[in-house]
């Protein structure tokens, strides 16, 4: 099996959707759409947006789930990111929350206004220490971080600066091709 390093599979920062921290949700979605159009169409489409500070340093990430959550701010008042399911509530009870909290009550009709006003900095996610990986690291180390942290991607660094994003989907594709190659040979 081919020995990969993180830098062999990462998406360079220049090819990723990135917006400044004072951008709106709408700006972020536009940036994602543009990055998807410009990106290699044979590869899996981007799903996340990076958020940068005034100096262009990456300070946060927004996933598709974060965007949806931003459109209904009441989720922010409810529970943590890890979700309720792990506490053993039933599906029926969680459905009842939809009515009780009036979740999405008008939120979808009001989507344009919300997208224009909501700043990404309010809804972005700040990556933890375990979401950074050096571009010289081996694929085994990166997979270890993805699996243990249940992450969809890792930020790739070189000498402390972020140079790209290692996506779970690209790692999976590399492993998948290697598995196929075993049987072809």
């Amino acid at each position: 099996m081919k020995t990969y390093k993180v830098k062999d599979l990462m998406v360079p920062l220049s090819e990723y959707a990135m917006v400044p921290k004072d951008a709106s949700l709408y700006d972020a979605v536009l940036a994602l759409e543009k990055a998807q159009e410009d990106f290699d169409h044979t590869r899996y489409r981007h799903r996340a947006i990076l958020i940068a500070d005034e100096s262009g340093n990456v300070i946060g990430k927004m996933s598709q789930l974060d965007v949806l959550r931003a459109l209904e701010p009441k989720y922010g008042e409810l529970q943590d990111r890890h979700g309720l399911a792990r506490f053993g509530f039933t599906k029926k009870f969680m459905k009842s929350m939809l009515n009780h909290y009036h979740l999405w009550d008008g939120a979808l009709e009001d989507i344009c206004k919300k997208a224009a006003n909501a700043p990404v900095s309010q809804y972005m996610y700040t990556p933890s220490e375990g979401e950074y990986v050096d571009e010289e690291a081996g694929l085994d180390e990166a997979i270890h971080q993805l699996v243990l942290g249940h992450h969809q991607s890792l930020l790739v660094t070189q000498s402390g600066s972020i140079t790209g994003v290692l996506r779970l989907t690209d790692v999976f594709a590399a492993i998948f091709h290697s598995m196929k190659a075993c049987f072809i040979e």
Partner: protein
Amino acid sequence: MKKVEKLFNRVLQRVNINLREIEFDANPWVAGVIPIDQFGKFYAFYGISSRHPLDLSFAHSSVAGSYFLGKCRVNNSILYKTDIRGDELKSKGDAIKYQDFEIVVNADEMIRIEDSFLIKNLVHNCSHDPENLEEFNIQNTCSMHYANIHGSPTEGCFLGPFSTIDLTSMQDSVIGSYSYIQAGEVLHMNINPGTIWVHADGDFNFLYEYPQEILEHYVSVTPGQAVSGIFMDFIEARKADFQRVFDVVNLELPFSIPNGASLDRFAVIKPKITLNENVLVSQRAYLENSWLGKGANAQENCYIINSKLMGNNVTAHGAKIINADMGTHVFVGFNSFLNGKPGHRLNVGSDCIVMPHTIIDLEEPVAIPDGHLVWGHISRMKDLETQTYPISKFAEIKDGLILGRLLFEGDGKAFVDGFKARIHHILEANGAFYDGSKNHGHAQNNQNISINTIQPYSDGELEGLYPTIRITP
């Protein structure tokens, strides 16, 4: 490096190995905040009486400032100013009911602490692990300031400051600061700070999470720094008062103790205190200018200041009641912080249940009516709308209740009945119902406890460690 430091590192390694799956590293949370240089400065002490079993052993451990009662084995562990109260352990021949089983205990139960670090903790009650009734195990566990391990065997866990794990078997899990968990079994979970979770599978599920921005005022933990916030400030401001009770060998009782009551010699008493019959005041409790009615109790690490408790009140481990008037039969759960102010007191009606880890910190006078369930963070009367509920109405809940940040699913009656039965049991166990001859409990049994001390090595490579000791009748 001294042996006690090697021991500390070894414990941390074991905790981290257990928690690798949830990617938790205990090192940043303890680095620089653990007073290793203090381990050689304090004696440990243990109680003996004709009413309590005695079998204590310590091997390759440091137990500075810690208290032991009953049966306990400590190996390769560090316990700092921690209370191990083995006065509710199971006895040989006891029949334990669990689901459809009735299991007979085949030996007297023992608390076994191995490869663990506990700082200013309280360990009490008996193991609620039906698979291991004879041993209450605490293994490969790091438990931070003022955490309570109550009837909860733990293996490979990290407990944040002011957290409580209650009647729950816990493995390979992290409990965030000021979280209270009573869930039967917790495996491989990382629970956020300020989570109050009471879960009985198939019966009910109670979940409340503090807003993090509010919780941070009360308890805040930054890696590499001491625990901070209102809770620690409150305790630190009264730390010097405990100095005298630990320094002086023979303390005179400040007043005569009424019939059936007990006042531990390691409690702080500041004028003017009135204790009535069958009152229990445990070690490390702090009482100042207060009145405790018949059958009331103040458990370990409790503070009762400028307050009146009308009788049969349970003030559970670590609870604080300041400038408050409490009716009869009020239960205040673990580590709750009830902070009335001189200008606007707190009034809690009779038969209220204040859930464990509730914060009432007043900005105006607040009166909670009789018979209410209380939870969350309350500072004004308006907060009662979403953080209290009549207990009688709660018992009528069939499916669920969503109120403010509270999520409750299941049978409200099962929840209420469970709490009421437990409160009755606590009062009974504490001797609140003693009638002069029957219904003995801790208040009566603790009246004649003698205290002995043991000392660590004070210098050299073994500084801070205690010699291997076995203490039996």
